[in-house]
């Protein structure tokens, strides 16, 4: 057992390091103040284009769709090196992390040829149009309707919580195409043009103050049947591909989110009534707890990497990641703000404490986004441990016959 790169991996890492050193110079430190949205989008596009030109996009994807055809280890090495900098990347995490893999797995070769390369270059941004007001955890209850009209489909309905819809060019949307089938059986997935007639995107402001997600309204939006992903009625299966990628894409701790090191830095500067904070047993225990959680997840990911570099599938232990990471962020931030007393309450732009305040607000959303803590625990209990599922009274009834409770 070791953490060393194989000789090939070491070569790749050296090459990536050199490239990043030569190209990410302006991003070695965090921005003095957060980028405005349009600036963030422009910078993200510029950085993605640079990566594309140098062959650092779609690292694990097949060459046939414009990827590099390399191993997951290569992707990880690139991510590790990239994450030492503060380059803007979040704009593409949903599109390249979840939507595009769904597009090339379930779309026709023509569709893949049209969309994948431009997404890889970063020219087109994608969003995930799954959740609806009445269907989040229970995604298969969505009501947005797609009706066939010749070689087109007409979509009506509403999506919600769609991250970056306001900056997206395309999205993948799951719709109900058969109301007489049971809920999981009547769904179909499509690619939709966010600028098509009948699309309306309205921003939703988050509790934390920013506005990253949206409501999206569909009024007679037309989609060509060629833009269907998977068979009619197979939308649930297609969605599961996306969700599998989602858990990989959003599972870990967000880049540069405060962790045990931040807590140690904050604590080191605090003198409390019962002595220096760093000498207090409760503070030391909290640092230890945070380390165990954050590093435990990192090491768990390394187990997955080792499996991947052997060509095997990662084990079920990956499923613990987001449940641990999001709640640890919330509890650590809360503790650090507590310890900082009045200075943890006043907002001082640019400070470590402001980052912790941001983390305290954002972690509340992270515990919900991409599968809530409760749903992820159900998945662990049912799919990993084999416990029986909850009773699902609505599972086999035709959707049109379900009665409102």
């Amino acid at each position, binding site marked *: 057992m070791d953490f060393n790169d194989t000789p090939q991996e070491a070569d790749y890492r050296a090459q990536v390091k050199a490239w990043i050193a030569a190209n990410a110079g302006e991003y070695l430190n965090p921005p003095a103040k957060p980028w405005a949205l349009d600036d963030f989008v422009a910078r993200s596009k510029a950085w993605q284009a640079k990566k594309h030109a140098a062959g650092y996009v779609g690292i694990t994807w097949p060459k046939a769709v414009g990827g590099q055809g390399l191993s997951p280890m290569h992707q990880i090495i690139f991510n590790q090196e990239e994450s030492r900098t503060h380059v803007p990347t979040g704009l593409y995490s949903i599109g390249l992390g979840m939507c595009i893999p769904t597009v090339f797995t379930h779309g026709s070769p023509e569709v893949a040829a049209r969309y994948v390369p431009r997404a890889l270059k970063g020219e087109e941004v994608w969003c995930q149009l799954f959740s609806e007001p009445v269907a989040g955890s229970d995604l298969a*209850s969505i009501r947005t309707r797609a009706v066939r009209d010749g070689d087109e489909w007409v979509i009506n309905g509403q999506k919600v919580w769609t991250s970056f819809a306001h900056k997206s060019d395309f999205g993948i949307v799951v719709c109900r195409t058969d109301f007489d089938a049971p809920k999981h059986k009547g769904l179909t997935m499509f690619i939709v043009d966010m600028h098509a007639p009948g699309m309306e995107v309205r921003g*939703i402001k988050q509790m934390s103050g920013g506005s990253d997600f949206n409501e999206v309204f569909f009024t007679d939006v037309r989609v060509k049947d060629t833009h269907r992903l998977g068979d009619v009625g197979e939308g649930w299966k297609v969605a599961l591909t996306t969700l599998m990628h989602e858990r990989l894409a959003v599972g870990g701790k967000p880049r540069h989110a405060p962790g045990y090191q931040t807590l140690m830095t904050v604590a080191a500067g*605090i003198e409390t009534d*019962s002595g220096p904070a760093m000498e207090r047993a409760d503070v030391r225990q909290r640092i230890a707890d945070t380390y165990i959680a954050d590093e435990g997840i990192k090491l768990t990911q390394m187990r997955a990497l080792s499996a991947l570099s052997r060509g095997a599938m990662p084990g079920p232990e990956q499923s613990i990641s987001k449940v641990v990471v999001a709640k640890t962020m919330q509890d650590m931030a809360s503790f650090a703000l507590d310890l900082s007393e009045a200075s943890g309450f*006043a907002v001082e732009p640019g400070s470590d404490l402001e980052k912790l305040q941001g983390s305290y607000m954002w972690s509340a959303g992270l515990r919900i986004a991409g599968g*809530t803590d*409760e749903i992820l625990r159900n998945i662990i209990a049912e799919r990993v441990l084999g416990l029986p599922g909850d009773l699902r009274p609505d599972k086999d009834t035709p959707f049109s016959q379900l009665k409102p409770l």
Partner: protein
Amino acid sequence: MNFDLSDDAKTLKEAARKFLDARAGPPVARKVMDSSDTHDAALWAEVVEQGWPAARVPEAHGGLGLGTDEACVLAEEIGRSLAPVPLLSTMGAIEAILLAGTDAQKANWLPKLASGQAVGTIAWAEGDAKSPTAMPSLALSGGTLSGAKSPVADGLVATVAIVTVASADGPAMAIVSLDGVSREKVETLDLVRPSARLQFDNTPAEALGTATDWVKLTEQLAVLAAWEALGTSDAARDMTLAYAKDRVAFGQRIGRYQGVKHKLADMYILSELARAHALHGCWAWSAGAAELSPAAAAARVASLDALKYTAEESVQLHGGIGFTWEHDCQFYYRRNRQIVSALGSRSYWADRLVRALEQRNRAAA
């Protein structure tokens, strides 16, 4: 044994609940958040009209002469309704003067505070990581004060502040008219209860009591704040409970799932534990018992635990909608941070609790 609030306090609580249900609550909090107002002035006028600031002020000074039970229920109902009025800050200043003021100070300030002519607040924090009982940097010298306090809750609207100052025996208090004192808004996590930075510059100030009085006052304030936190926490729980009975996922009300049910049950457990300690604190305060030290600290710790858990899990159980600006969850999530910072954090009070228990054991030995 009668370990319960007085009947008068219960009657007042009911009246206060009814009034605040109609006049305050999240929509009123939102109005203040969306404006540049320091508080809801019309509501404050009505609260004064109700006589609440006068509750604890003796009749001789123009007040109602009510007990600690009444003060506690008012704190609870203000906490529940999130009413954006400086009542609790004013009540804190009144308690300081009742506890430590000279006859002249009482005669000067209590009638004004009782009638709403003056608005009070307590200013101990200095923008750093110090606790309420750490030595302040400000000191009284020749009847004046210089230096800053921040963040001060309701500091934009207060007209008089109880300011902590350094003394040979530890932090002590001074009473300061804020006439002409420069102040600015401090950005904080709570968008409904604005805080200020007060800048004193050779500002006239009078000593108020001794260092021992300040420690005692923090215990009384801890009891009041515990009731406030309980009210806030219970409001968040009630809102979440209603949602769990209504929201459907997988063909069932989410309240049917044990993962949801147990969280609501835990909110209740934490709240009732805190309520028992808050009642104990209320009793010890009114009885002038030495037991106030551990009782107040326990009430503070237990109420902070209830509020943190309830505020966080309320967002969680609402799902995506709970994480939006438009939803009321954020008021409780943010207010939790305000209540923590207003009087010292959980670990600070847990430490005070154990110290108080040690002292009690020594005294018994």
